[in-house]
C-alpha cells in the first residue's frame, strides 16, 4: 500500500517536473555538456583541426597565479555585492511587507523591478554619467555644499560595486518580501504582547522566518556576480579585470573555447562548493 502511494506520488512529481527539466536539458544541459567535452580537448573539433584529449586546460588554471588571483578577486566582489544588497534590501522589503498597506504595496512591488525592464548597457552608461568627475553626482553635491568637493567615483572598485548592487538589488528585495509577507502579523503581535523587545523579535522571529527568502535572493545575486564582466569593464577602468573577463577573452580575442570552457567549469565548481559549504549554516539560520 505504502509502495503504491509512493509510486503515485513519484508519478505526479515527475509530471510536474519533467516539462521544466526537459526544457532545461535540451536548451542548457546538453549544450553545456558539449562545452564540458570541449574543455578536455586541445582544439575545438571543427573540420581541419587536429585535436586530442588533454587536461591541459584545467592545468592552465594552476600554472600561473593569474586565474586564481582573478577568481579570488571575483569571489570577493560577489561577497561584497551580495552583503551590501542584503543589508540595503532587507529593510526595504520589510517596510514594503509590513508597513505599507493596501494598493500602494502592489504598485511598489511592481515598481521595484521596473528599472530592469531596460537595457543593462544603457544603465551602465547612465551610471558613468552620474559617477564621473564633473558628472551628475559631482555637480549635485557641489550645488548643495557650500565648499568645493571633487567627487570622481568613476573607474574604481566603488563604481563597480554601485553598478552591480543596483543591477541585483531587486532580487533580494522581492525574495525577502515574499518571505516576510508570509509571516502572520498576529505572531509578531503575540511576541510583542509577551514583552519581547524589538531586537529579540527581529533576531528570533522575523529573520529566521524570512531566511528562505533572503537566502534565495543572496544566491541569485552571488552566483551571477562572480562571473560578471560587463559592469567591471565599463565602470572599473584599469582595475576592471575580473575572472569573467578572462573567460570572455578566450571566445572573443582568441579562438580558445577549450580553455574558456575549462575556466567556466572551474568557476561553476567553486561556486557550487561554496553554496554546498554554506548550506548547513544557512539551514541552521532558517530553522
Amino acid at each position, binding site marked *: 500500500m505504502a509502495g503504491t502511494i509512493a509510486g503515485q506520488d513519484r508519478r505526479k512529481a515527475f509530471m510536474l517536473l519533467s516539462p521544466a527539466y526537459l526544457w532545461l536539458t535540451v536548451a542548457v544541459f546538453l549544450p553545456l555538456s558539449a562545452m564540458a567535452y570541449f574543455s578536455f580537448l586541445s582544439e575545438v573539433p*571543427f573540420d581541419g583541426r587536429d585535436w586530442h584529449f588533454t587536461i591541459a586546460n584545467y592545468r592552465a588554471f594552476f600554472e600561473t597565479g593569474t586565474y586564481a588571483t582573478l577568481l579570488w578577486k571575483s569571489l570577493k566582489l560577489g561577497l561584497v555585492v551580495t552583503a551590501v544588497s542584503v543589508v540595503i534590501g532587507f529593510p526595504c522589503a520589510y517596510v514594503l511587507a509590513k508597513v505599507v498597506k493596501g494598493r500602494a504595496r502592489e504598485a511598489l512591488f511592481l515598481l521595484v523591478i521596473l528599472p530592469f525592464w531596460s537595457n543593462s548597457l544603457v544603465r551602465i552608461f547612465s551610471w558613468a554619467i552620474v559617477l564621473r568627475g564633473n558628472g551628475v553626482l559631482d555637480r549635485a553635491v557641489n550645488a548643495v555644499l557650500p565648499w568645493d568637493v571633487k567627487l570622481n567615483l568613476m573607474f574604481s572598485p566603488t563604481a563597480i560595486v554601485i553598478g552591480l548592487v543596483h543591477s541585483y538589488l531587486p532580487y533580494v528585495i522581492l525574495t525577502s518580501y515574499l518571505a516576510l509577507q508570509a509571516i502572520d502579523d498576529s505572531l509578531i503581535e503575540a511576541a510583542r504582547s509577551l514583552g519581547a523587545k524589538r531586537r529579540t523579535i527581529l533576531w528570533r522571529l522575523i529573520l529566521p522566518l524570512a531566511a528562505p527568502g533572503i537566502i534565495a535572493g543572496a544566491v541569485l545575486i552571488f552566483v551571477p556576480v562572480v562571473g560578471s564582466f560587463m559592469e567591471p*569593464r565599463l565602470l572599473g577602468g584599469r*582595475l576592471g579585470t575580473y575572472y569573467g573577463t578572462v573567460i570572455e577573452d578566450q571566445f572573443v580575442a582568441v579562438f580558445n573555447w577549450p580553455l574558456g570552457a575549462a575556466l567556466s567549469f572551474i568557476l561553476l565548481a567553486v561556486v557550487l562548493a561554496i553554496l554546498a559549504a554554506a548550506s548547513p549554516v544557512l539551514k541552521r539560520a532558517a530553522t
Partner: protein
Amino acid sequence: MKSLLLTTALALTAGGAFAEEIRVLNWQGYGTDLDWAVADFTEKTGNTVVHEYFTSEQEMLTKLRTNPGAYDVVLINSAYTKQAKDEGLIDAIDTAKIANFADLDPALTGNEDLNPGGQLSGVPWTWGLTSIAVNTADFAEMPTSLSVLWDPAWKGRVSIRDDGLEAVQFAAMATGQNINEITDMAAVEAKLKELLPQITTFWSSENDWNQFMSAGDFAVATYWSGSAARSLSKGLPIAFVVPEEGAIGWLDGLSIPTSSTKKDAAAAFIDWMVDPEFYVKWDAEGAPVSSNTKALAALPETSFNRQLVADPATVARVQFMRPVSDADRETYLKLWQDMKAAQ
C-alpha cells in the same frame, strides 16, 4: 554609374541572378549597411540586402563555420583571410565580375594576405590605421612620438583598447620593433608594465571612446583612423596623429563564402562597395581609406582620408599587420591578462 549598368547587365546574362536577397556579414555601421547605399544598390540591381553583424573576428569565423549557406558577402580583415580560405570557408574571387576591379590599387589587390595560395580571396575594400588621437583642448601642439602615452603629464588620462594583440604591437613600435616580427618580448613586456599605471580605463568600442573623450576622461588614446574621421564629423575636438614610430595598418577585404548560392549578386554588391560614387558619399560621413584610386582622387581636398594619404612619408611609416598565429595570439593575450590581473 556606367560600371553599375555593366554589372547589372552581367548579372542578367549570368542568368537568374536577378532580384535576389543577399546576406552580408559585417560589423554594424561599417559602410555596407548604410540605408542610402543599400537603397541605391536595390534600385540599380533589383537585389535586396539583409545584414547580420559580428562583434569580433573570432565570432565572424564561428558564424561562417556554423551557418553554411547563410551569407553571400563577408567582411574579413586581411589578417584572417588566409585562415578562412584554408578552412574552406571562402572562395577565390572571380575578378571579371567586378567592373571596378581595374581601378583598385594594385598594391592592395596584390597584397600577399588577400591572396592565399596565389588566389585573390578577398577584394580589398578599405584600409586604415590604428594610431593615436588626442584631445585638442589639451594639446596646443601635436605630439610627434608615441612616447606621449608614457608621458607622466597625462597620467590617468591615457587609454588604449582592451586587446592583448594591439597592446603588444604598440609596445613593439614604441621599442623600435617590427610589429609582425617581435624579437624582444622582454622589452615589450617592460614597456607595457610602464604603460599600465598611466591608463584611466581601456576602451572597447567607438561608443565608449566617444563618450569618454567628450567627457574629458581621455587626453590621448589609441584610435582607428576611420573612427577618428567619424568622430571628427560628429564634432569631437580631436586630432589623429601618426607618430614617428609609425602606426598599425589594417586592410579589410570583402569575400564570398564558398557556401553562397548567390555569387553573382554578391559580386555585384562588392562592385558597388568599391564604386567611387558610393565611396565619396560614405567618406563625407566618416570612412576609412578606399582601395579604389579613382575614388580617392574624387574626394574633396578637405577630406580626412585625402589628407591622411597625401603625405607619402606618413604612409611609409605604416606597418601593415600580417596574419598572427593562434599560438602568438594566445601568448599575447596571456601576457596582457597577467598584467591586467596584477593591477
